[in-house]
């Protein structure tokens, strides 16, 4: 039996009148005697079947993150001044410089963390939001995996922000050499934080709601 076919009959918490606590994992009855959803008896957190307003919040944070991402890429993130020679670096030009002069291996890592990971987050979360809204049963396991990947790699985008911060603190040789942070790095930091919040607000259970897998 294929994984997909096998999973068809697995009972879900909502069908059994149960709720799993988001915080501590405690299995709780969905409603108490009065028919109200209560707090988790073990950790005291509010229980909910799905994260509240998942679509609205995720969309809002994702769009905000994207708006920050534009200046983060267009504006320079770092200024290098040496002997009156001023050089402004964007995220992409930093990667190129590392590739040409330093180590290509590290350039690939920085490229993944600073450019691929944010793009992955926008595309993946956007796809998940649209496909879940329509209740699609397309590639559910793969989409679930995609969400877990986004959660796992999300915070590594902070890499470039820390590089700029460390270089600014280290390169302080007055007229001879100086590194300054430029506004792009602030926007980039905000992009990372906003997209991290966006992926936290999304509820992967929504992938499995909607249309049942076809029975045949």
């Amino acid at each position, binding site marked *: 039996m294929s*994984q997909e076919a*096998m999973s068809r*009959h*697995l*009972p*879900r*918490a909502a069908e*059994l009148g*149960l*709720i*799993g606590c*988001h*915080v501590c*994992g405690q*299995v*709780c*009855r969905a409603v*108490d005697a009065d028919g109200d959803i209560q707090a988790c*008896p*073990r*950790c*005291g*957190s509010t229980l909910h*079947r799905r994260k509240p307003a998942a679509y609205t919040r995720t969309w809002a944070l994702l769009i905000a993150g994207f708006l920050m991402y534009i200046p983060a890429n267009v504006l320079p993130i770092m200024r290098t001044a040496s002997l009156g020679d001023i050089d402004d670096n964007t995220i992409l030009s930093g990667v190129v*410089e*590392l590739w040409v002069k*330093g*180590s290509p291996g*590290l350039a690939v890592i920085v490229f993944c*963390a600073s450019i691929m990971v944010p793009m992955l987050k926008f595309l993946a979360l956007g796809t998940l939001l649209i496909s879940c809204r329509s209740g699609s049963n397309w590639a*559910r*396991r793969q989409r*679930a995996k995609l969400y*877990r990947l986004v*959660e796992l790699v*999300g915070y*590594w985008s*902070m*890499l470039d*922000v*820390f*590089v700029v*911060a*460390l*270089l*600014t*603190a*280290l*390169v302080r*040789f007055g007229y*001879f*050499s100086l590194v*300054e*942070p430029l506004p792009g*790095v*602030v926007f980039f930091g905000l992009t990372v934080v906003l997209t991290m919040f966006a992926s*936290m607000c999304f509820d*992967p*259970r929504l992938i*499995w709601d909607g249309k049942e897998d076809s029975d045949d």
Partner: protein
Amino acid sequence: MEGARQHIKPTPHRPRGGGICENQWMDLSPPDALDETATQPLLICEHCDTVHRRGPLAKGEVAECARCGAVLERCRGMGANALLALILTALVVFVQATLWPIVTLGLNGQYVDATLWDVIHTMWLDHSQVVAVLAALTLFVFPLCKIFMLGWLLLYARSGRRAPGFRRLMVALHHLGPWTMSEVFVLGALVSIVKAHLYFDVLPDPGIYAYAGLMLLITLFAGVDLTRLWDETRGESP
């Protein structure tokens, strides 16, 4: 209707079937009436809401969700004592990583070094207060909170007890989640060194070694499933 299927995979991918009778979940007592200290018989996948029967896990085994493939729970190979020892090591290393300079740059006989706090301070002065606050939180405040909270919980968990404030600390630890970024900073330091090496003399300082140690400890801790502390401890949880 079929019952919840147990689907346990030992670390290499061979599914080891659980011979679980169908419809067994029907016989279970109402979950909200469960004695809080008893091991829960059910487990709900936090990624897809599928209800599973909980099976015993051997050391190093991982239970995966049969529907979505997410990790349900993992059995760490280490007891509370070993974890506490690791946390104390992490505290020592973290203090060193924070206090000691990370690297020194040299140019024409002039030398500049920087500690983590110099990094945060310069960003604050250089009109990037947002970055300074982010760095201070994710590289100093949150990791330190995590170390102290875990240390406190494990100190009591050694004897199977719940520390004062157990409930609140466990909730706080859950919310800290991905907001500790020391490992990203280590990679950032590496990239900075390679970039700086083009123009300056780079001399490693003790801080970078402390960070390397911290990175190892973080990797060890990545496989630890903290929610198990709820089941492994008993007592008041104010």
